[in-house]
């Protein structure tokens, strides 16, 4: 019989290696999945993980996409990780991302077609505020009424999607769009554009913000008292109250940061890669970021690497769709599998696996 025995202290070795093990296991399982779909598994894996970076023909296009996709994932995941560490489960980042984009875009479009250099900064602030305000709904309901923030933040995603639809066909629809849904193109209006900063890298302001967020989160979690309190509240809530941590304040703080960062991600996306508010503007970054946060073990540096890896599967998935006819959904399932394996092998860092007779009947 196999049994689990709790380690006296979490294993540092396994904490660092479990994500790699999970990636390896996912590749094996994914290979089987692709084979079942009638694709050559090795070719599929190469197309997803290798070709986007090194294919002689496609790499020049897909390499910059890496940062374009990783930027919002990292930005959102860093925010989420703070809450997850504290046991505060904001799973509605998708909604906060949408609201950040809408509020930010609306703030800019109110001044169309002004050429003021203040417009983009104003939009950035408005985007952060939009995401923040949307996250404050579950935060305040949790603090005031102890309403479950998991359910509220998630249900608000569906509300945000309806607001998005309403914005695209209604209050933000471009007057010059000939009646088609969708706002003016923000990436083509110089005052609101979030362009590629260094040609050929995919680097835009959102990616810069993501890097800053990683550094900020790293300092916060390892050096600052607040980071200590976040960890304490997540691991031992009663001990946190004994230490003088106000649970309500922490809920508001964590949801503020994650909401604002998700809103920023939405704003940078709508002014850059996406270009406009449209009905299908959101692309599940808010949900994929949850996988990124866990894959990065809720650690800022881990999240940076995990975001890049997940971006690679996005781009590689598109490439595999184009070259091998691999369905887009296969990549989504593949990402889900990655999270399963990660959660499964996590047991190694906190428990020792013993083979032999069970002590407990």
């Amino acid at each position: 019989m196999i049994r689990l025995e709790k380690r006296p202290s979490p294993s540092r070795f396994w904490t660092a290696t479990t994500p790699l093990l999970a990636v390896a296991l996912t590749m094996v399982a994914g290979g089987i999945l692709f084979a079942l779909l009638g694709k050559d598994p090795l070719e599929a894996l190469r197309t997803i993980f290798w070709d986007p970076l090194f294919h002689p023909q496609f790499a020049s296009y897909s390499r910059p996409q890496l940062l374009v996709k990783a930027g919002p994932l990292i930005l959102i995941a860093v925010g989420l990780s703070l809450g997850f560490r504290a046991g505060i489960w904001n799973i509605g980042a998708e909604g906060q991302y949408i609201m950040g984009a809408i509020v930010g875009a609306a703030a800019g479009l109110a001044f169309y077609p002004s050429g003021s250099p203040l417009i983009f900064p104003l939009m950035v602030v408005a985007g952060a505020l939009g995401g923040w305000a949307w996250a404050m709904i579950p935060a305040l309901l949790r603090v005031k009424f102890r309403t479950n923030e998991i359910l509220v933040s998630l249900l608000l995603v569906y509300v945000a999607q309806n607001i998005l639809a309403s914005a695209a066909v209604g209050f933000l629809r471009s007057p010059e769009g000939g009646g088609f849904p969708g706002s003016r193109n923000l990436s083509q209006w110089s005052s609101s554009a979030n362009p590629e900063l260094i040609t050929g890298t995919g680097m835009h302001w959102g990616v810069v913000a993501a890097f800053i967020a990683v550094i900020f989160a790293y300092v916060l979690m390892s050096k600052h008292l607040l980071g200590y309190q976040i960890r304490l509240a997540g691991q031992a809530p009663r001990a946190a109250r004994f230490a003088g941590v106000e649970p309500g304040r922490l809920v508001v703080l964590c949801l503020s940061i994650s909401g604002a960062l998700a809103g920023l991600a939405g704003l940078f996306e709508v002014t850059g890669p996406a270009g406009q508010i449209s009905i299908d503007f959101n692309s599940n970054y808010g949900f994929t970021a949850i996988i990124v946060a866990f894959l990065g073990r809720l650690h800022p540096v881990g999240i940076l690497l995990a975001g890049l890896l997940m971006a690679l599967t996005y781009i590689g998935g598109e490439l595999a769709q184009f070259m091998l006819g691999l369905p887009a959904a296969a990549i989504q399932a593949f990402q889900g599998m990655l999270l399963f394996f990660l959660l499964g092998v996590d047991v190694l860092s906190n428990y020792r696996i013993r083979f032999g007779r069970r002590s407990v009947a």
Partner: protein
Amino acid sequence: MTHLLSVEGLTKAYPGVVANDGVSFSIAPGEVHALLGENGAGKSTLVKMIYGLVKPDSGAMTLNGGAYAPAEPRAARAAGVAMVFQHFSLFDALSVAENIALGMENPPRPSDLSARIREVSHTYGLPLDPDRLVGELSAGERQRVEIIRCLLQDPKLLIMDEPTSVLTPQEVAILFETLRKLSAEGTAILYISHKLEEIRTLCDAATILRGGKVVATCIPRETTAREMAELMVGATLMTPKAAGAAPGEVLLSVEGLTLGAASMFGTRLQNVSLDLRAGEILGIGGVAGNGQDELLAALSGERRAPPGAVLFRGRPVGALGPTERRRLGICSAPEERLGHAAAPDMSLTENAVLTGTVRKRLAGRGFVDWTAARRFAEEVIAAFDVRTPGPANAARSLSGGNLQKFVIGREVLQAPDVLVVNQPTWGVDAAAAAAIRQALMDLAGKGAGVIVISQDLDELMEVADRFCALNGGRLSASRPTAGLTIEEIGLMLGGAHDMEVAHAEA
């Protein structure tokens, strides 16, 4: 005399520790047999093997002359072995009858079961209402549920794990009456305890365990408590000595504090008042679940009270949080070590930061000074003889006694003016308990005021200058400990907790 149960060379090893090493003893029908030993001596492992919860690595048991090797508790119960647990075996949100049904193999129909519960509970002097929710019962009544659950199965052997730790002296008397009656009817009782006087009054024979081995057997009535204690600990015991400072000014006072229960089955504090003077130790006795957690939370600042309900040096502090109170000089140590007083998965350095930030200046401008934190943790480890490889180890890797020394040391070394501790030696080995008591007395000797909340009356009599009782969320007036008798204390603790004593007519 024929044996009911004999245990021959039972051995059980866990990684890093041999919990039981060749343990042998036997028990006759109707015998009350004590299993005596310190925390960690291997008593729990031994009875878990007898009850089928743990499988021995080697050794054999015979019951009624036949081989006995229960694979699970169900098999043990079927063979006539029943066990009353110290904790963890009742379901708060279920009724008494449902709890009892869960402990039976083939429970009768609910209506029949209720009738049986009433009948058996009256026969043995332990009246109980089958329809009440267990979460609403007092500790003594909860224990009755467990005992009746066992008695309904007509056990031949009844195992009782530390049964009196949650009872008032009067309740202990009722329990002993029941156990004697059972023993007279031929039921053997295996009685686990570390309370020596109890064993001397109740038990026919005793097996003493130390470090997983049987170190002695004795007839308790013919052995002194001190002799048994030294067999149990394996060394001569030191009694803590008070420094004997005269009580000074009032440091902390509580005036008419009323506070709602912390949890669904918690206790509401009602009109609690007390004064604590510099240089004295105030002992607060009472059975767990009578408002101890709530009182500690109200004093530590975890639960806010009206400002004027708690005064520190005459200044209202009731509305202040734990950090502000620590800054003023009020420190505390809650009962639950893992998860409340310390974070299990965090290192000792991180756990030093838990309460030490203000008084030990472990944080500046919001940033934690990890070097200073490690130094403070090392200071606590050195001063309180905490056995651990170093401050980088997780709190949960420490034994109960060592972690408790760390927790108490962390507060004492912050040189508080007022220290409030709840169950400071619960589940702690005798040497660590003595060290903790000494530290509390030394702190008082230096002029601090100390409140010790404890279920252990012997401990309170030893360290406290004044004693008061917490019962049902109400605090009695205090009395000097010198000259208090155990009966007086029992009455202060609410006697038999208003439970009927049915032995009179039984």
